[in-house]
């Protein structure tokens, strides 16, 4: 399977679950900003979750299918359009060679993921296919996609993917009648995310902690794959000692010297020296990642145990989705 890029969109890169084994050498995790959408796009074409997808920010992208292809998309930044018709998300989509596919704006969010059967094939760099733009490695030669780029799929296509591909082609249809319900995995209120209080919580005065847990904050324009800056009630410190740089990870909320909040995202540095008031629960990080500059966010406190239970429950739900899809195509 092969596509060529007609319009790359604002920022499109190859991403996967991320690069965890080189953190001690200060190599960021990178990977998909919205891991849930990345995983659902993969599942919809019968891939494992670690297959590489194309991450698009916002829309205005288009590509041409150079061969027959089986793809799927998920996320909130774009709708996939073929023959002037919006294609359903979280469903396998079969396009014949020559098809022109467009991605048009979906104002709901920022990031959209497009998976292909087998995953997009780029070389592994430090055991991951994720693109890290600041240092120019990973993905397609360490850079964002450009007009004219050709992307191919990885040959090791799963049995499920092969079955989906063959059935759609034989029936001459674009997609089957089933789909993954992403909405079931998302909260009703996408402007509230759950947080677990951080190790330096007691460095802040009580009124600041209350403000953090009750007031709305606004996603600032200075937000990118490294971190989202928030504006709102500044947080005041009671204890003014220095924090020695220590490991940080996406989802951690740091408080800068001026009392501003920065939520660390996929491309964040591996260590940081700002006190950490809280961290976003791992299940809510994809929801937070889709917020656009100008949107409001509130934080609601949960315990670390609750965060872990939510994580485990989410993993069980995602495993069930994969099993259900396999059972549709593979006879036991």
């Amino acid at each position, binding site marked *: 399977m092969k596509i060529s890029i007609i319009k790359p969109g604002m920022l499109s890169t190859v991403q996967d679950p991320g690069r965890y084994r080189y953190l001690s050498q200060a190599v960021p995790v990178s990977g998909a900003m919205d891991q849930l959408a990345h995983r659902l796009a993969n599942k919809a074409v019968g891939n494992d979750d670690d297959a590489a997808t194309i991450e698009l920010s916002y829309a205005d992208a288009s590509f041409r299918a150079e061969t027959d292809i089986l793809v799927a998309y998920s996320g909130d930044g774009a709708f996939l359009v073929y023959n002037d018709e919006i294609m359903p998300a979280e469903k396998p989509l079969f396009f014949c060679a020559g098809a022109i596919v467009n991605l048009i704006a979906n104002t709901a969010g920022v990031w959209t993921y497009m998976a292909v059967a087998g995953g997009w094939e780029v070389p592994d760099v430090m055991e991951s296919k994720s693109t890290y733009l600041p*240092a120019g490695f990973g993905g397609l030669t360490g850079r964002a996609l450009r007009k004219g780029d050709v992307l191919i799929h990885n040959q090791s296509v799963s049995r499920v993917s092969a079955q989906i591909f063959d059935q759609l082609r034989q029936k001459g249809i674009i997609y089957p009648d089933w789909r993954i319900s992403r909405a079931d995995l998302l909260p009703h209120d996408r402007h509230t995310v759950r947080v677990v209080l951080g190790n330096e919580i007691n460095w802040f005065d009580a009124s600041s902690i209350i403000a953090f847990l009750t007031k709305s904050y606004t996603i600032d324009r200075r937000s990118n794959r490294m971190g989202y800056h928030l504006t709102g009630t500044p947080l005041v410190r009671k204890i003014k000692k220095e924090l020695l740089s*220590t490991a940080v*990870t996406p989802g951690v909320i740091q408080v800068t010297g001026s009392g501003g909040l920065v939520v660390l995202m996929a491309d964040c540095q591996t260590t940081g020296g700002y006190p950490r008031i809280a961290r976003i629960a791992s299940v809510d990080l994809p929801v937070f990642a889709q917020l656009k500059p100008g949107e409001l966010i509130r934080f609601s406190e949960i315990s670390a145990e609750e965060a872990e239970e939510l994580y485990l429950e989410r993993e069980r739900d995602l495993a069930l989705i994969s099993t259900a899809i396999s059972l549709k195509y593979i006879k036991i």
Partner: protein
Amino acid sequence: MTRFIDMAEQCAYFSADYPVNIYALSEQSVTVEFGTIISEELLNLITGFNQFLVQNPFPGLITTVPAYASLTVFFDPLVVIASDLPGKFSFDKVSQYLKKIGCAKREESYTRSDTIVIPVCYGGDFGPDISAVAQTNHLSTKEVIDIHASGLYTVFMIGFVPGFAYMGGMDTRLTTPRKAVPDAKIPAGAVGIAGGQTGIYPMETPGGWQIIGRTPLKMFDVSRSQPSLLKGGDQVTFKSVGTDEFNTMLQNEYENQHY
């Protein structure tokens, strides 16, 4: 979720002098904080503990990240939960395991890290801030070079950008504050000073360190099995080289293929 651990005297890594604080950084990571100061003694403790843990991993361990005074472990919660480690949540399972390892009798003395010699062409276009360092400390630029090139440094941490080594052990006569306004572009290989530390920029980035020279070595190269030339705990010495030698080494470095 914080645990303060009672110190037993026989603890190999969790020394009574440094009460350990263990906390969850995320659902997939736990940090062991050994202290709140920078010291060689703490670094040795953390380096030894890290080596022992990597040799004796718990089920689900993915990687470890040493920093100045802490070690963070990343793991797969699904594997940890499925393991028979004691505890209900993965935080309990991992922190109890770390406590056990930290208090284990030290079986062997830990491997002293490598000493790496780094050639540096000091001053001139490569070290635009060497006169600022000299003026701050009432030294000549030659004295700055002599002092910097005769020290033995210890890598405390790799952070900031891939392969950036924060090194301690610098002669206090070279202590110079960071620039008030960071430079927009510092080239790869630039050797700098910030406060009492020295460091090398592995790639072009903005930065606020006082730049005194440049190394021809690739500090970070994704084609090497260990992309970062330095790692936490390494010992480093600098060797002053001239421009011709620098250029020859630079050429060799970029022609060699590392696999």
